[in-house]
């Protein structure tokens, strides 16, 4: 499994309220949620994001509310992967559970710049910055999580 796209870069503590503001939580429609993704932190995100793009951020990405609407909005926007120094734990769980690959890599998170072209290999955890030519090693998923992702999310992994 791989991802390949251009970077949208953010800072520390990007919370779920800015990823998808609560005023849009009166719907569970993936397309509608995507149309407001990152609205309160980056008004142009929806306009600029392309299929396959990658979000990079610093520490504690996805902190705050448990709303699964946040990773859903990101995934439905076309984003193929999120890389951060650290993730808030509920966001991490939710992303895995819906099949949005996310990787923790402090060095990559700090060095990769907005607009860079990046390739990610989920099997090896290697993050390659095509723009700078630099590579980074993230932890690949543990087998338990790999199983959930391979089966297409938590519910498929428990389905009889």
């Amino acid at each position, binding site marked *: 499994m791989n991802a390949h796209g251009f970077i949208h870069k953010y800072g520390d*503590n990007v*919370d779920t*309220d*800015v990823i998808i*503001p*609560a*005023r849009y*939580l*009166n*719907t*569970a429609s993936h397309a509608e949620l995507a149309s407001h993704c990152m609205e*309160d*932190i980056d008004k142009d995100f929806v306009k600029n994001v392309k299929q396959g793009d990658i979000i990079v951020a610093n*520490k*504690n990405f996805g*902190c*705050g*509310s*448990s*709303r*699964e*609407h946040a*990773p*859903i909005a990101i995934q439905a926007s076309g984003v193929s992967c999120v890389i951060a120094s*650290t993730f*808030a*734990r*509920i966001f991490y*769980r*939710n992303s895995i*559970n*819906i099949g949005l690959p996310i990787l923790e890599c402090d060095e990559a998170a700090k060095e990769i710049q907005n607009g860079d072209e990046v390739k990610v290999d989920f099997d090896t955890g290697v993050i390659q910055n095509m723009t700078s030519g630099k590579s980074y090693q993230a932890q690949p998923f*543990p087998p*338990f999580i790999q199983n959930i992702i391979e089966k297409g*999310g*938590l*519910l*498929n992994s*428990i*389905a009889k």
Partner: protein
Amino acid sequence: MGMTMTQKILAAHAGLPEVEAGQLIEAKLDMVLGNDITSPVAINEFEKCGANSVFSKDKIALVLDHFTPNKDIKAAEQCLQVREFANKYEIINFFDVGQMGIEHALLPEKGLVGPGDCVIGADSHTCTYGALGAFSTGVGSTDMAAGMITGKAWFKVPSAIKIVLKNKPAKWVSGKDVILHLIGMIGVDGALYRSLEFTGEGVKELSIEDRLCISNMAIEAGAKNGIFPVDEITLAYEKDRFQREPVVFAADSDAVYDETYEIDLSTLRPTVAFPHLPENTKTIDEVGTIKIDQSVIGSCTNGRIEDLRIAASIFKGRKVAKDVRCIILPGTQAIYLQALREGLAEIFVEAGAVFSTPTCGPCLGGHMGVLAKGERAISTTNRNFVGRMGHVESEVYLSSPAVAAASAVTGYITDPDKMN
């Protein structure tokens, strides 16, 4: 190797003699919770994977509390979807308008969660029940759906930070000030992936309301859970309330902690978190002159009867300042009724405040108190992120009910001790 209190509860629910930090386990659940925002996503997943039964009719709680009474047509449709699901699967603990309260005030009050439980909820503040000696944590909707089907959830066993509480808090210092102080000290990711375990002789100086408030905001330090030991105060609260037998777990004397912090409760001051993170704390003495447009008293953090009593003690014989809207929200119907019987509601209305039906509404900028561009609120809620309570250029300052009430009266963020 000794286990923390959290690890012992998880081991018991995983059917294992012991667990250690980092271990992946599957634990049996005593309660699976969802609300009107997270349940629709869970129900969609539940149906998409072809499930046709729930693991238990009485270990699932569905509470319509966020955008209720329905704020708009879409919110009404989401509530309808949850209502129909609850009826179809005969969910016993379904709480609709008229019975519902804010979920984390309601479940402890009804005795649905208690000592020794293992609980997940599709709401980040599910960590509240740690105050009662339960392992309790927030998850997303997919975990909720899986929990409703299997009665189980996977966890990575957390390591822990030990918080030793000493001495007694001064007047006007509450659980809210303790947790804001702690978040200010360790930061919004200071306890990321880990447990906060509160202990020490200061615990007995904290009421159940104080403890519920402290555990509630453990997530605001990134924690997986925030847990208190079970003592006489807990057991007295649970007597004739908790629907099961309390199971009391305690950390082993040789339990290993990543870090230990000591908080001398007697030295704490009323504390305020400035925009836009709960870690931006200042004591009331350092606040300066901050004019407010709105004061909100309520939420899963501070909507309990003790909170309303403290607010009423300040509003009695006083008025809300001319340019301030003050919105007071009891956590549950029972708290609402008690506030009426004790005369608190009358004090609020006479002061010029709004006394509302229970709802999460304004806390997350849903309804019942959304802020305009440039407006500023003092609020007893739990988050002050950008745009949390309304416009992206509005501001939220977090405080205790005492500070929020005093500020409503003066129009500026105010030390309750300095009221005339």
